[in-house]
């Protein structure tokens, strides 16, 4: 946790996330848009997608450099 992820691991992870999202989209077409249960399933799948996005964003942010992003010497941090 927190360290740089190996590129192969990262690739597997991102592919897994994309596969999950593709499966979610495919499933959504099969659901009835009116029943409460189907709506719940839709919400859970959407939540899984959004969670996948959060994880990908986190991995990207913490893997691309030292985890804090480039410093901008010209502009000081606030506070």
């Amino acid at each position, binding site marked *: 946790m927190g360290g740089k992820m190996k590129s192969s691991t990262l690739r597997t992870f991102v592919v897994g996330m994309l596969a999950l999202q593709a499966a979610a989209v495919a499933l959504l077409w099969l659901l009835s848009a*009116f029943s409460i249960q189907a*709506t*719940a399933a839709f919400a859970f799948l959407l*939540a899984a997608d*959004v969670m996948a996005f959060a994880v990908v964003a986190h991995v990207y942010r913490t893997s691309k450099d030292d985890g*804090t992003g480039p410093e901008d010497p010209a*502009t000081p941090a*606030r506070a």
Partner: protein
Amino acid sequence: MADETSEEKAGPVVKFVRWLDSRLGLSYPLLRPVPQYSINPFYWIGALTVVAFVIQGVTGTILLIWYVPDPTVAYQSTSYVFSSVNYGRFLETVHLYGAYSMILLALMHMMRNYFVSSHKSPRELMWVFGMGMGFLTLGFGFTGYLLPWTVVSVDATNVGLGLLGPPLPPALSNLAQSLLGISGGAATELVRFYDIHILILPAILLLLLFGKMYMFEAHGAAAPAKAIPEAQKRGVSFFPDATLYLLELAALFAVALLVISALFPYTLPAQYSVAASQAATPQPDWYFLWTYQVLKIAAFEGAGLPIALTLITALFAVLFVLPFIDRGGERRIANRPKFVMLGVILIAELTVLSYWGKVTPGQIIPTEQAVLVLGGTALIVAVVFVVVYRVMFARLSGKLSSGAQSTMSFKSAQLWTAAIFTLLLVGGALAISGSITGAAEMASLGITAAGLINLVAYLAAVGLVVLGTVYLIYRLDLANGSIKTRVAALQVGWKDEE
């Protein structure tokens, strides 16, 4: 040379993103970098409130397609969304819980800033703007509640609007009534509420948000009151790093919202009619339950009503001008026991009043009982607060003397904090929702053993979430290295380092 090679190797997507960046100026330092210590969920509660506002804007705009602001068809147009629009129930549910979360996050943002003294110089006007935005958020709740034209929404709104009558001075009453369209009958009133909800309030809120962001850019996030390592002060670029961090938090918030929406889908209450209204007991939504309960105290009935209204107005007024009252230079929680205790008592009283209001719909509360409950709550909270304060100091001393140190890396700590924060947010929402539902069921269906066990379990869960939150704050405090300062304060008396 390296850049040229990098440019040649870049794929079409990367090239497109770079082109977009060069045109839109996304990575230009429009917003200044934020300090490393602010990469922490507690610094972004206000931003999450804005995220909730955006979700409300998106879902609300979609709902406008079907909604008709006319009392004769408002209910049918809302009901149509539930029954005949694809994922209509889901959309309505997300809009409702999005509103709840926006109010809850605004409250959390206010209380957090109060406890960590972010309202003090030079951020006094940021607090005033924030209070204005919080007030408008409640306005969103009040005006939006009426729109579906259900029996509970119309009845509760009428109770609220009744307060704009005789208790107020005639000039003020007339102004309020004409602004809200009350004097023009139900049709005018609904259209006015609709206009205020979708146009006026968003416009004013966005103006205040712009002003607050402008001041935020000038002053930045308030630094922790305690000493922080130099590494924690270095700048993190706002784009893409801080923006990505915000997106991560926003995504976690959206996940919580979606899960709750899936677990507790909203069901539209019955349509308003005079007959249905006479059979129902008006009760406001949870965020106004505390005012509802105050107004039900016997002493504030009839001639006492102006006193209650004055007290409630005074509370809001004090909150607005708080930075000009709480002007001491001390910002550490440990050194502001009186103000911290007042804040904790306020939270406890609002919680007790809200819960009490939920379980006693329509009942007038004897004045002696109100004094006993509210006074008792304040007394118990104050005593517990003092004990916890003392114990906390003793515990901190023990930790330092045993040489205990965190072995977790800063990044792992960040991730854990975000995860636990999300868990607490979801758990808290579920527990509060379950408690209110359980209490309401018991109030309407009577007390049963199963219902009682259910309610106690949910209340215990609320307690666990509260304890978890306190513990999280405590651990964050430890991680930020404030122990030495605190123990030094205990041993040799407080000495401000700033």
